[in-house]
């Protein structure tokens, strides 16, 4: 009964989302305050019903109610409680429910925090969010109902995919979705501004923190996914340009452009129409990601095509939402031009290049991901695109992006005065050259051209981000949170660049057969195989290998890679063992039993791989830090169209 109640709660939530959309949008259009306040109440009501509906499904998982089809298909009584709860988002239906719940949380946060916003603007924001919520709830209830019963009930469940029975995997979807879905808040702010026909740029000030927040979540979500793929899948890769990965990466790239262009719009009232377009684009890309992942149009995600209705539904929703927003844009944008200038060498122009290059990067990933479909449409035959295409192509826009970053953060607003920072720029570049080339040729040694370039640019970014804040600290000038956050985020970029550079150029990987007691040396590390032993877990059995890694006479890692067979699904999984240190990972994974105590093993040495995820996490941290800036607490009061924001501690001091 409980699950039926949950189902009913979702139907009520659907009704409330419709009310939220209708009263929010028409209330604002007709300037009826009562209607607008109904929208706010609808958000709260919708949230309560969503929570209730989700709770009943969680309950079904906890008590092992295998009369619920979704529970029977994705859980099992032998599954530990933690994973039984996480199994809720273990497949299509539940992850969609999670998506909707996350949207509910964002919406209620907007309704609550947005009390300071002009009521009609807030009503429009909530109205747009209501439309998004309505679309997804309708999708859930009509094509992907997780509350469906199974008759007769299953005796036990089919179990959760073993690979997903992992801590990082269990927490990864909520974080990633918080990022994805958060971009719909950004979208709603932009749409509200366009619907209202605002000609000022106050909306950019309001939209900024929400976008940065969502972007930080998205960064963490993608990094967690990459980390999980790395250590659970066991093949040592951390990014494969798989269409599914790209689906999350494209909104991130466009989102990164957006948080920068929002700064210019917020601060100087420039690039208004571009920022609005980007807001729409970021949201479109996350919707597109949903389409690509759940409709079966791409090879990586074939398994969802089972139901073409889903693809049709999302595509229709996409056409209505994005088509509508872009039509609105075409209508409003022409009146948003501004006659404010800036010089060739100024912060504005660097952010312009940042945006252009990030847009090109997004387009490259977009084109590569959709290439098979595009070739199909144009009748160009079969085509497949993998890492060997993406790796070099992606560098085309991102190399100049990374190279310009160090210079850009030293440029002043409005007027070019780079000459003032010339010394600092050249000084940091000189240090970066010495240190970077020293590391490349002194420690790692590489014949690739990109290695020294990446190393020097990475270090330069870190140094040139640090130099101004450090000089100011020495002069005892307090740094606003905005500047600190920006510095931290850019240091994250530098660390990220260093990580990629070294892991991509100096990784050593060997597949080798070793008998018990034999060893093999890669990159100065001796991997000694000490054999395997049987192991038993709660819902699996298997073998565990033992590999000792030593450098010189010192043992540096004690690795236990295992190979498991999960009872319920009969799946065999290999779990690599990783000896991690800040500057390198040593991996060993078991292949096959070759008989007579011999096994095939994959051994890897991956330098600096931790820097990749660390860099992403630091970027996200920097983003979150900017949210504590004073300027967001002393938000300018909404006023007439030509009011400009005053006082900008974020950049005025740089």
């Amino acid at each position, binding site marked *: 009964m409980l699950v039926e109640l949950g189902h009913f709660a979702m139907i009520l939530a659907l009704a409330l989302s419709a009310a939220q959309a209708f009263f929010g949008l028409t209330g604002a259009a007709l300037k009826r305050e009562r209607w607008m306040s109904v929208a706010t109440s609808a958000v709260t009501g919708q949230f309560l019903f969503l929570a209730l509906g989700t709770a009943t499904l969680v309950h079904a998982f906890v008590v092992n109610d295998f009369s619920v089809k979704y529970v029977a298909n994705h859980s099992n009584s032998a599954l530990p409680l933690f994973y039984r709860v996480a199994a809720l988002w273990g497949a299509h239906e539940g992850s969609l429910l999670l998506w909707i719940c996350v949207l509910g949380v964002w919406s209620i946060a907007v309704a609550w925090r947005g009390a300071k916003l002009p009521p009609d603007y807030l009503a429009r924001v909530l109205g747009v969010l209501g439309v998004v919520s309505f679309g997804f709830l309708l999708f859930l209830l009509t094509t992907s109902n997780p509350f469906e019963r199974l008759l007769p009930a299953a005796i036990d469940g089919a179990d959760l995919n073993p690979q997903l029975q992992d801590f990082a995997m269990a927490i990864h979807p909520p974080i990633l979705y918080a990022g994805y879905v958060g971009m719909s808040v950004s979208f709603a702010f932009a749409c509200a501004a366009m619907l209202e026909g605002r000609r000022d740029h106050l909306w950019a000030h309001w939209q900024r923190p929400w976008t940065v927040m969502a972007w930080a979540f998205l960064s963490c979500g993608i990094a967690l996914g990459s980390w999980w793929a790395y250590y659970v899948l066991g093949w040592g890769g951390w990014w494969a340009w798989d269409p599914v990965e790209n689906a999350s990466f494209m909104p991130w790239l466009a989102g990164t452009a957006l948080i920068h262009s929002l700064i210019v719009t917020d601060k100087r009232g420039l690039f208004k129409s571009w920022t609005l377009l980007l807001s729409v684009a970021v949201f479109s890309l996350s919707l597109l990601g949903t389409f690509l992942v759940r409709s079966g149009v791409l090879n990586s995600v*074939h398994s969802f095509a089972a139901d073409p209705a889903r693809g049709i539904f999302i595509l229709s929703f996409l056409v209505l939402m994005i088509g509508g927003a872009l039509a609105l844009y075409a209508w409003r944008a022409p009146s948003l031009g501004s*006659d*404010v200038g800036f010089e060739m060498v100024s912060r504005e122009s660097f952010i312009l290049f940042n945006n252009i290059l990030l*847009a090109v990067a997004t387009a490259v990933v977009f*084109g590569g991901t959709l290439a098979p479909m595009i070739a199909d449409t144009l009748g*160009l035959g079969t085509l497949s695109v993998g890492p060997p295409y993406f790796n070099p*192509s992606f560098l085309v*826009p991102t190399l100049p992006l990374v190279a310009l970053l160090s210079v850009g953060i030293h440029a002043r607003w409005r007027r070019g005065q780079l000459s003032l920072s010339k010394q600092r720029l050249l000084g940091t570049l000189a240090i970066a050259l010495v240190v970077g080339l020293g590391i490349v040729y002194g420690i790692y040694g590489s014949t690739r051209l990109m290695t020294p370039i990446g190393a020097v640019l990475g270090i330069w970014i870190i140094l040139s981000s640090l130099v101004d804040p450090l000089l100011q600290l020495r002069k005892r000038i307090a740094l606003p949170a905005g500047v600190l956050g920006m510095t931290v985020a850019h240091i994250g970029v530098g660390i990220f660049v260093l990580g990629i550079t070294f892991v991509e150029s100096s990784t050593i990987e060997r597949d080798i057969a070793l008998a018990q007691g034999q060893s093999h040396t890669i990159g100065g590390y001796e991997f000694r195989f000490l054999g395997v032993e049987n192991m038993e877990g709660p819902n699996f059995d298997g073998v565990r290998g033992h590999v000792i890694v030593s450098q010189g006479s010192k043992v540096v890692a004690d690795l236990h890679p295992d190979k498991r067979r999960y009872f319920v699904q009969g799946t065999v999984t290999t779990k690599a063992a990783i000896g991690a240190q800040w500057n390198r990972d040593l991996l060993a994974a078991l292949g096959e039993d070759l008989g007579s105590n011999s096994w095939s093993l994959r051994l890897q040495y991956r330098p600096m791989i931790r820097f990749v995820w660390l860099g992403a996490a630091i970027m996200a941290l920097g983003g979150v830090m900017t949210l504590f800036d004073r300027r967001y607490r002393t938000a300018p009061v909404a006023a007439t169209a030509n009011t400009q924001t005053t006082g900008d501690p974020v950049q005025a001091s740089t």
Partner: protein
Amino acid sequence: MSAARIRQRLLAAVFAFTMLGAVALAFAVDNTPQFADPVLQARYYGLTHELRCMQCQSEALADSNVGLAADLRMEVHKLIESGKSDVEIRDFMVARYSEFILLRPRMSLRNLWLWAAPGLLLIAGIVVALRVLRRRAQLPISDDEVS
């Protein structure tokens, strides 16, 4: 085929779950004999990483643990051993499995749009940026906005 079916279902679960990341479930350890010559081994490594496993489709030959991938790795090994060039080996695979097997699309006229796209987009982007810059540089820089 049942193994492939299970894999497929697993992949489904992973993708549904994450929208991110899953590429291979159980990776492969390559049992193909290694070349003594590091140049040949490097070519082998490169080729097996740029040919797709047709059966699993979302991973390279080098990382796949299905039987056919092992056979094709062996085939690559044999072809290198018999003195075939990388181009000939790619042609060999394409003749049998179509261009779909190439993770690195060919630089052909048909694929020109794909390979030219990053460069052309970059140039177009720079042109647009310069036009905006030139226009903005001629406009008055109002100072009243920022304290």
